[in-house]
């Protein structure tokens, strides 16, 4: 061991985020006191961020299998079959803590990290999405955070040249102290050219490629496993700095190497850098690693073993090569002007042995390091869902159309154009559905297939009732894919919650997982990858429970897909799915009545599936010209969005049913779609035959939204309200 070993003190152990019990386990595993480097390695490997110690027991309950699944959770990203020997590889991941401290770099490196997870498996990234949640627009930090995060996402993705095609942006006071930046990447690979991280075989060269190692991001994983307080700004040095140019070179170099036959295993250096990549590769391959840190390319001099092992410098990968493949591989990386260094060898000792300056700085058993990470079944108390509020008991508005205008111009429903116009959403020449609709669609390059992708969750619902909210998040992702004409394939989840050591927070987590599980089973929509971000709290205030769902679907033929834009005048608008006028936890209550009350809308999963299957059939056989699912804001908002997208107005019929008008117009009942069609009779007949509630709600045409008994709302006025809020907000002081 290193001569200048620091004495272990309880303070030092606590600073590394290890509990007294966890430290006892370290002593048992090693049979001695750890060196400072070893303490650092245990600290990051056993951090919540890397070990999932509070969440693992629950994550295991999520269904992860299906005939379409090639690889579920546990690898860098999930893989689903898309036919013709091709697969989609995707994952969503959080970069919440760093983005709050340093929004540009935090968001940028979030994008960089998730892309590495995807191309490390052999896929070319083809689409980026992101789910962003900010605090109240009135909060003093919000504008700065929006500006920095959006610029950071664009700055990274635009430079790499992967289109950012979709996502969602929310504002809610619950995120005032902890914003959420969840980045998703979808990649495309040949199924017989997928790479995994298991370093199987002894005596194989371990190669480091990419950027040099610096002192940035040390303890990033530990930071992401703790709450914030008033001094969080002091944590800025733990945020990494992104270099998208190097990542672009790394993508090209890795894909060039992958086209050959020299890779045994490959893994990106993400959270906990060299430590987690080497431990995970060795663990999965049942081998040991001898690492010689003197060979690691460093950005600065005098770095210690501790710093090198814990650095989270970006744009680095660890590769285990076939013996003798080093020279050919080196040529590729040198061509792309990237560092390439043989830093170690796989061994049969089962130990991670780290040498620096001739000294052994760490010598630890890989299996225990990886698999003996503590696992907690933390106490939890279920959230008691509020009572259902009948639509009749919710105040009616003075005017339906004025309410429409207010909602369309509110921060919650206004256009996100200001955001996505800062993202290159067209590069790669395959974006066949641009942002602004239900799901984005990228063509599978060189084919007529399409991959549809979406990000969804409604935190208001999850706060009120985590089980229904979890269910709804999965169902909405499924619905958005259906509305584009896709076969929903699988999801990735990004579980953002507060401090799991508080039973009520753990109860939210457990509830959301339960709801997600039900929906995943009912919709055959398995979870193939994901990430958990806990401790999203500042001064004891937790974020709303936010299980963000990233869904991916396959469109077999992009000439048979749908979008939300109305295409022609004189078409019939039909509503498919059951109307109940549910207003509890609706945006109508939140924005217009300033109340968040009642149970969220329930999701009837069997009706969901039945309705979705019909809608997809209608799209495939060309029976409908536009499709939009009904989500936040309800039916009238969905109609308005379809009208604005197509530049064609709509006139709604008189409603003669039993529900109050506020419930019909703004209720957020789940499992519903609006379709536009020339031949409504056929659709009415098919829906009735399938037992799906259906109603003609109006007709397309004109240049206004017309509601019986009220002044028409000109589309131009609606467009101005809808488009102006965000740019105006961002340009004001």
């Amino acid at each position: 061991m290193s001569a200048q070993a620091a004495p272990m003190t309880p303070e030092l152990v606590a600073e590394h985020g290890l509990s007294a019990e966890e430290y006892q386990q370290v002593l048992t595993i090693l049979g001695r006191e750890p060196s400072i480097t070893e303490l650092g390695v245990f600290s990051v490997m056993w951090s919540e961020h890397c070990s999932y110690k509070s969440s693992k027991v629950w994550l295991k309950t999520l269904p992860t299998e299906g005939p379409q699944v090639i690889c579920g959770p546990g690898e860098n990203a999930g893989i689903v079959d898309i036919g013709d020997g091709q697969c989609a590889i995707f994952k969503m991941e959080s970069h919440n803590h760093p983005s709050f401290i340093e929004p540009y770099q935090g968001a940028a490196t979030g994008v960089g990290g998730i892309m590495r997870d995807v191309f490390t498996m052999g896929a070319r990234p083809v689409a980026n999405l992101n789910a962003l949640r900010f605090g109240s627009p009135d909060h003093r930090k919000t504008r700065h955070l929006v500006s920095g995060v959006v610029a950071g996402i664009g700055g990274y993705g635009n430079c790499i040249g992967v289109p950012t095609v979709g996502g969602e942006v929310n504002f809610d006071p619950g995120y005032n102290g902890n914003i959420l930046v969840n980045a998703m990447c979808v990649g495309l690979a040949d199924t017989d050219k997928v790479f995994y991280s298991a370093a199987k075989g002894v005596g194989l060269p371990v190669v480091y490629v990419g950027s040099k190692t610096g002192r940035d991001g040390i303890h990033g994983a530990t930071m992401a496993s703790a709450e914030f307080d008033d001094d969080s700004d002091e944590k800025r040095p733990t945020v990494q700095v992104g270099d998208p140019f190097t990542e672009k070179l790394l993508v090209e170099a890795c894909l060039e190497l992958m086209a050959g036959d020299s890779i045994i295993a490959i893994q990106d250096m993400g959270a906990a850098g060299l430590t987690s990549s080497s431990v995970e590769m060795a663990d999965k391959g049942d081998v040991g690693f001898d690492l010689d840190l003197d060979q690691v390319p460093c950005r600065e001099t005098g770095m210690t073993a501790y710093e090198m092992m814990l650095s989270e410098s970006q744009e680095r990968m660890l590769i285990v090569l076939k013996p003798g493949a080093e020279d050919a591989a080196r040529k590729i990386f040198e061509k792309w002007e990237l560092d390439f260094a043989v830093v170690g060898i796989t061994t049969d000792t089962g130990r991670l042995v780290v040498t620096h300056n001739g000294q052994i700085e760490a010598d630890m058993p890989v299996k225990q390091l990886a698999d003996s990470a503590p696992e907690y079944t933390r106490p939890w108390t279920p959230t008691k869902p509020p009572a259902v509020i009948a639509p009749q008991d919710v105040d009616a508005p003075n005017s339906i159309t004025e309410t429409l205008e207010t909602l369309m111009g509110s921060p919650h429903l206004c256009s996100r154009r200001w955001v996505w116009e800062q993202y290159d959403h067209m590069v790669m020449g395959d974006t066949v559905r641009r942002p602004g609709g239900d799901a984005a669609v990228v063509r599978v390059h060189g084919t007529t297939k399409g991959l549809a992708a979406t990000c969804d969750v409604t935190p208001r619902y999850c706060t009120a009732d985590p089980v229904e909210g979890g269910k709804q998040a999965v169902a909405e992702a499924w619905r958005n894919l259906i509305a584009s004409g896709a076969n929903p394939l699988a999801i990735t989840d990004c579980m953002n919650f507060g401090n799991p050591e508080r039973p009520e927070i753990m109860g939210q987590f457990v509830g959301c997982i339960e709801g997600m599980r039900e929906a995943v089973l009912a919709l055959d929509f398995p979870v193939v990858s994901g990430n958990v971000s806990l401790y999203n709290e500042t001064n004891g205030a937790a974020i709303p429970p936010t299980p963000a769902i990233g869904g991916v679907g396959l469109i077999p033929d992009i000439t048979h897909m749908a979008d939300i834009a109305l295409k022609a005048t004189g078409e019939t608008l039909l509503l498919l799915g059951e109307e109940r006028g549910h207003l509890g936890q609706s945006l109508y209550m939140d924005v217009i009545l300033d109340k968040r009350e009642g149970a969220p809308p329930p999701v009837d999963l069997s009706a969901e599936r039945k309705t979705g299957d019909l809608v997809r059939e209608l799209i495939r056989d060309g029976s409908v010209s536009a499709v939009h699912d009904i989500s936040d804001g309800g039916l009238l908002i969905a109609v308005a969005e379809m009208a604005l997208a197509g530049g064609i107005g709509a006139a709604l019929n008189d409603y003669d049913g039993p529900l109050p008008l506020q419930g019909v117009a703004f209720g957020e009942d789940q499992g519903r779609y609006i379709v536009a069609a020339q031949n409504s009779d056929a659709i009415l007949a098919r829906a009735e035959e399938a037992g799906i509630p259906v109603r003609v709600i109006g007709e397309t045409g004109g240049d206004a939204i017309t509601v019986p008994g009220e002044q028409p709302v000109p589309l131009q006025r609606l467009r101005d309200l809808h488009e102006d809020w965000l740019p105006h907000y961002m340009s004001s002081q």
Partner: protein
Amino acid sequence: MKASVIVFPGSNCDRDVAVSLEAAMGKKPAMVWHGDADVPQSDLIVLPGGFSYGDYLRSGAMAAHSPIMRDVVAKAKKGTPVLGICNGFHLLTETGLLPGVLMRNASLKFICKDVLLKVERVDTDFTRGYSEGQVITIPVAHHDGNYFTDDDTLNRLEGENRIAFRYCDKAGATGGDANPNGSQRNIAGLYNETGTVLGLMPHPERLADPALGGTDGMPMFASLVEALH
């Protein structure tokens, strides 16, 4: 027709433009590495969009000193047609093949959207497929597209009929919100003196396929094939 697309570290529209060229030519263009000394014999050289060297210095400033650029400049001066799109336009100004500079957008933000362009000339190898004064839809995607040069140069460029495209509205007018980035005189694209070198910020390759929502970029590639076959 033989075309070469130069690939720099950080180019990211090289494949996109190759797809459009192949669709027009019926064969693949050569992809030429920035470190090579010579461009193979070509009827057209394309400098693609992207972020060469990350645009960490001035956009295009590093790539302009790539070994291949000496030959590109030499061939351009001898009359080989050169098309520079976005980052390729930056390179053309950095190497002096076209005058002026492209500054940060007036909004200081990256802008990705469809814009309307007025085709100012239809007598070059790049634009014969368009009609006089035609307004076309082509996307932009850039952070640094704000064309600037001194007034004398601007007057000279206009006098020499060297403006290729201007940002405009539906009627072809250049006022109001038509200008997305603050470019002087709404300049979106420029020719050299002989009309054989074209630099433009918008990406014609991004709307040259009906599946992508438009085909207004297609006539540019068709015109080149027609002229240079």
